[in-house]
């Protein structure tokens, strides 16, 4: 049974596409067949984060225009054979896409894949409506910042109104030291406002930038990072496994605290 999940946020720049790329890669590595759909028509980015930009020949728009078959537009990831990308168009006819188009395309993909992850554009206009049209579930990505949480709240309302459930919360780019100093909202603060069940906490990670530069999703990095581990845990939770949340407490003092943290990193 296929699961169609939209990854959305309202506000741009909170890490939606990065989460989509890394989650897709992780689910594929865990053995699921995964299709990533870039629904950010006109401003596509998912191909870049996956390092697949040079291999895009056709996009969803050519499929819908009848210029190619759907499987011709799918870009297969050479590092991970379980993963394919359906790219969005970058420059042409982006306005022609409708919710019905999305439903048809996702319907076609449903026969061949275990997961269809749809990367939604920022905003709550047409692009967003297209992105959620075919989705059964949602992951709402936000950062612990006022505008991101406000926009996420609008999105949660719209997901509810469109009967897309369950919707789960991912708090991205958390800076535990700032939370500790009462200079940033905690995950609990954000969760209290949005009233969504939490599925992941991803700490701020500089290596996201270098991995994006290279077009290699962070989870493929040989250097282990907490952020990659956090994504890995989200993928496992999506598959129904019970995984404890990472201990992101800032080590304050004492061997004991540090020791405990080491264990939890294992």
């Amino acid at each position, binding site marked *: 049974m296929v699961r169609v999940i939209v990854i959305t946020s309202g506000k741009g720049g909170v890490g939606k596409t990065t989460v989509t790329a890394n989650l897709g890669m992780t689910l594929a590595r865990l053995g699921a067949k995964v299709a990533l759909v870039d629904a950010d028509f006109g401003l596509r980015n998912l191909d870049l984060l996956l390092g697949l930009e040079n291999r895009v020949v056709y996009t969803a728009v050519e499929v819908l225009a009848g210029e190619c078959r759907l499987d011709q537009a799918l870009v297969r990831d050479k590092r991970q054979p379980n993963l394919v990308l359906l790219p969005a168009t970058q420059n042409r006819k982006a306005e022609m896409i409708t919710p019905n188009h999305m439903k048809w395309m996702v319907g076609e993909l449903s026969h061949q894949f275990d997961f269809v992850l749809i990367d939604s554009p920022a905003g709550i206009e047409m692009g967003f409506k297209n992105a959620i049209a075919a989705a059964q579930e949602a992951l709402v990505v936000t950062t612990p*910042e*006022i505008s991101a*949480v*406000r926009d996420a*709240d*609008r999105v*949660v*309302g719209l997901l*509810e109104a469109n009967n897309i459930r369950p919707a789960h919360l991912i708090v991205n780019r958390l800076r535990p030291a700032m*939370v500790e*100093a*009462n*200079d*940033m*909202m*905690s995950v609990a*603060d954000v969760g209290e*406002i949005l*009233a969504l069940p939490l599925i992941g906490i991803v700490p701020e990670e500089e290596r996201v930038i270098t991995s994006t530069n290279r077009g290699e999703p962070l989870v493929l990095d040989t250097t282990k990072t907490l952020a990659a581990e956090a994504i890995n845990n989200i993928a496992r939770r999506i598959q129904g496994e019970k995984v404890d949340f990472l201990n992101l407490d800032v080590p304050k003092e004492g061997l004991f605290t540090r020791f405990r943290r080491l264990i939890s990193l294992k």
Partner: protein
Amino acid sequence: MFNFLELIRGRDRADSSRQKVKQRLQLVVAYDRVDLSPKALEMMQREILDVISRYVEVDPQGLDFSLESNQRATALIANFPITRIREDEDEEEETAAENVVKP
């Protein structure tokens, strides 16, 4: 335990930017969620006040209308300090009435 630690560390809790942003967000999402125009809100406020004033005398200085959100349910909190009960009503004396309307 957590509060105790905070106390020891002497962090400025009520005044921290973390508390501030949370308060601002709670207010702003409460208004976002009901999606009422300021005009509609003002009209509603006036009409509720009209009704209340038929029964009791209200201190206009102390009026307080606000929206609060909890677990995605928004409540309208209206606070009317009552100065005097109208004579034609034989209610018990009260000093303040709180009126909560759930949508």
